[in-house]
């Protein structure tokens, strides 16, 4: 199996998403608060995974622009959850970076009044389990 | 017991009932037999003591066909069977005058014998009114004693309770005898490895002599002709061949009474080979309780039986492998 295919499958595994369910309605892009900052738009995440081009996704601006607000996840009518896909790509990167996870105790130190509220909420959602 | 006899006499005399279905004293201290009494005089042989274990509700199938009402003495556990028979239109409520009789646990002569007591001449303490905790047994080999509860039938140790589910009147006090959980043994077997389970049941069922006592005594086995006696399924074998027949018979019998069996324990009581047949029935009861909600057959006369009912969300059969 090519490494590209492996990467794409890893994304699917981490996210638990079947990208083929996408009907390309664009509701994710319509919902995204970071849309304008992104080079690859939320509705495009899916095709990158389907086309096994995880590399571009990983190297994209979008990877770090997604707030994990999960608006797209909540509203996606097809259960495709682009937010989970980009999150999975992010996790892939994080995993490659030698398991440098943030431990919960370190969080208060890193808090900065400048951090947007939405990011905090998103972080809680993201790590709630 | 005297109160019961007096009341029976009254009801016979005033014509309320045409006969009394109870127990007649046996010729040994422990073998009273189910019997009909049609006049006050014959009631002198009436007995009701710890050895009157027989569930008389099944006799009411035949008694329902007789002219007039039959007074029937039912212990609390027997009333479940009676209800179930009403539900299945097998007995006629109008033909029965039910006296709910008290019970302080029924005795099993085999349990007394198992303690090495033999040559029994008389037994004291089996009277229903007795408060005695111990049975005093006079034998030709000397006097022996046995704790009442040690001589009790298995079913009484897991008694369903003192309440009569149906009656016209109640006579006599009942006693709490429950000191065990009725599904413990089933759970113990469930936890065994398959080979161990198989060995356990093979050993037990290899004793079966196909005498049909379990079936014939069972109030739920009320078929006029059992499938194993008719040729409808080409199943009319009656040999014990220690291979498949017994399993087939006991599984199917348990299946046919599943959801209808009140767990009265008669099957195990009468088995001449002491096979714990209730373990089959209780397995189904346990499964039904766990999978479809608690259900006690004979609690009432109109609820839907588990096997004639369903919900959309019922467990799939694959749950059997998943429960471990």
């Amino acid at each position, binding site marked *: 199996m090519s490494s590209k295919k492996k990467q794409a499958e890893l994304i699917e595994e981490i996210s638990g998403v079947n990208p083929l*369910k996408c009907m390309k309605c664009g509701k994710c892009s*319509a*919902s*995204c608060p970071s849309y304008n900052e992104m080079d690859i738009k939320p509705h495009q995440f899916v095709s990158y995974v389907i086309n096994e081009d995880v590399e571009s996704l990983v190297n994209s601006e979008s990877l770090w622009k997604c707030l994990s607000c999960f608006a797209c996840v909540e509203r996606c*009518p097809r*259960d495709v959850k682009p937010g989970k896909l980009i999150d999975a790509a992010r996790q892939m990167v994080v995993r490659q970076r030698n398991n440098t996870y943030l431990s919960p105790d370190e969080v208060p130190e890193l808090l900065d009044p400048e951090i947007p509220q939405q990011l905090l909420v998103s972080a809680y959602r993201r790590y709630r389990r | 017991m005297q109160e019961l006899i007096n009341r029976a006499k009254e009801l016979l005399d005033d014509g309320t009932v045409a006969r009394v279905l109870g127990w007649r004293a046996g010729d040994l201290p422990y073998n009273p037999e189910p019997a009909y009494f049609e006049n006050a005089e014959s009631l002198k042989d009436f007995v009701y003591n710890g050895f009157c274990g027989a569930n008389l509700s099944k006799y009411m199938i035949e008694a329902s066909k007789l002219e007039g009402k039959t007074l029937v003495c039912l212990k609390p556990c027997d009333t479940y069977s009676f209800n179930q028979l009403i539900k*299945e239109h097998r007995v006629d409520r109008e033909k029965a005058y039910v006296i709910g009789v008290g019970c302080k646990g029924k005795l099993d002569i085999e349990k007394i014998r198992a303690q090495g007591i033999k040559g029994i001449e008389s037994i004291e303490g089996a009277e229903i009114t007795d408060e005695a905790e111990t049975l005093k047994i006079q034998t030709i080999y000397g006097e022996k004693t046995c704790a009442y509860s040690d001589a009790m039938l298995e079913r009484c140790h897991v008694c369903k309770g003192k309440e009569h589910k149906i009656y016209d009147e109640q006579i006599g006090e009942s006693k709490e005898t429950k000191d065990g959980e009725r599904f413990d043994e089933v759970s113990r077997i469930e936890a065994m490895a398959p080979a161990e389970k198989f060995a356990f049941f093979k050993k037990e069922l290899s004793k079966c002599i196909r005498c049909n006592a379990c079936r014939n005594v069972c109030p739920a086995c009320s*078929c006029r002709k059992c499938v194993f006696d008719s040729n409808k399924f080409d199943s009319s074998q009656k040999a014990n061949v220690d291979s498949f027949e017994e399993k087939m018979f006991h599984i199917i019998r348990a299946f046919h009474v599943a959801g209808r069996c009140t767990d009265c324990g008669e099957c195990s009581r009468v088995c001449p080979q002491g096979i714990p047949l209730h373990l089959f029935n209780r397995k189904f009861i346990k499964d039904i309780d766990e999978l479809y909600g608690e259900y006690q057959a004979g609690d009432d006369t109109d609820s839907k039986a588990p096997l004639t009912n369903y919900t959309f969300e019922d467990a799939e059969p694959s749950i059997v492998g998943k429960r471990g």
Partner: protein
Amino acid sequence: MQRIGVFVCHCGSNIAATVDVSKVAEMALMEPGVVHAEDYQYMCSEAGQAKIADAIHEKKLTGIVVCSCSPRMHEATFRKAAERAGLNPYMVEIANIREHCSWIHKDMEEATKKAVILMRAAVAKVNLNTPLQPGESRVTKRALIIGGGIAGIQTALDIADAGYEVDIVEKTPSIGGRMSQLDKTFPTLDCSACILTPKMVEASAHEKIKIYTYSEVENVSGFVGDFTVDIRKKARSVDMDKCTGCGVCQEKCPSKKAPSEFNRGLNNRSAIYTPFAQAIPNVPVIDREACIKFKTGKCGICSKVCQAGAIDYEQKDEIITEKYGAIVVATGFDTINLDKYDEYAYSQSKDVITSLELERVMNAAGPTHGHLERLSDGKAPKEMVFIQCVGSRCSDDRGKPYCSKICCMYTAKHAMLIRDKYPDVNVTVFYIDVRTPGKNFDEFYRRAVEQYGVNYIKGQVGKVIPQPNGKLLVQGSDLLDNRQILKEADMVVLATAIEPNPDVRKIATMLTASIDTNNFLTEAHAKLRPVESPTAGIFLSGVCQGPKDIPETVAQAGAAAVKAIGLLAKDKLMTNPCTAHSDELLCNGCSTCENVCPYGAITYEDKEVNDHGIREVRRLAVVNSALCQGCGACTVACPSGAMDLQGFSNRQIIAEVDAICR
């Protein structure tokens, strides 16, 4: 002992290529009861059937086994062939050696072995077959239509025109259904009322049609050709014979705060009301929930003003029991509840409306008298946004997984009508796909774009945000331009998914008609029997079977009518002889079988029996073979084995088991 003939079909090479057919025939001769065996190229051909007939005559066969394709394919063929040759058709059994053998196995030896075993099982079964005679049941020459929308009306008219009596049961006070709520219809832009009203009138005037409005089906028993139906005529509180439909009562009614169902709650109606002006019958009903007289005991104005003395506060629900030969379900649809789609702000803003509500807004008889205006402040909108696929094509539990089919077209219609009537209003449609398969449909959509300048944007809307200034901020994306769009709109129209009328589940249960996971009634065959329910005598008309537009609905209504007429035209029906049967001498009368019978086919009777010399009266199960459909649930419920199924008897199935396991 039977004299059985075994016929092995080559099916060209379909079977013969993998199964040694002559070996199967040879082995068949070893089986008990088999007196004849042969193989042939195409058993189902005329020549093949002739071989069967010849063998029946020559060898005096009493049973037939055909080793061929699936019985679902040719069982009927071979049964008919046997019948023509004088053999009872139920003495024929099929061994499926094609679909279940030659087509799935590659190894000739293995496939042949299996074919032999399948043949043996069939022979073992036939050995125990008995000739069965189909029963007859009579047909009541009257049809019941449940639902008085366009589907129900059309079906009723078609059946009535063929000369049969038809009753329509309609839940609301008037027939007309959803179509009566529509303003215009695509793609011709006819006025909906103008084409519907004549049909309504025709139905009400038709001598063969009886209409029960404000009525519901309460209970259904019986079976194809002979249904017995209880219809509850709800108390109207108005005497239908006396009322002249003058309307004074509605005018004078002091209680005018009840939301109008017909106008989708966009405005109010009086407590005594007819849903709309062209209602049929033109007789009002009193909404007892809203009526002051019923609530407080005081008032009675309607009664005072009614010259005809038609008001009857004492009226009670009435149950009418009627017999029918056929039942057509035409229960139609409703739009889904939008509670779960909070992102579109439907519950937050009066200016976010469903398309069906827009129909009422656009309609001259609607709450705004046909003026396009915002329902919040009555102002004329300048920017209108339409959002497609709201709740349709959703795989989560918020919406429906299917395409509602009609939205693309009616949205084009709405956009066009608005642009036509109010050229200064900008119309934007957010769509995922525009689906326009249909005669003149795509042309219609293109006209909206090309001729009327409707702005179509590919991309679903993410959110509608009500603004403090009363405007609605629509956040969408344009997938083709790859940009996010923020658009201020005055009104937003949601193309809300449609779903079967919620009552249909109850009705389907009464009819024992099957229903799919989306509550659409299931057709007997998706392609070949699209207007029949699998339950005999039940037919499907309109959206209750699946989303469709008006022309399709009318077409299906006609088709359902034809099927119903086909049934009503028969005097008698042959019933399936493979029904349950109780052995009187074994029956305990315990009622277990009755409890599992889905057709109510089992009843109990006290009967005298002679059980080997013992004569007694016993409570016994009796199967009504006309009601019994032969599922066999009772046969397993019966502990004594008294209940058995003809054609699939215990001993037959056991013989098959034995044959396979030996």
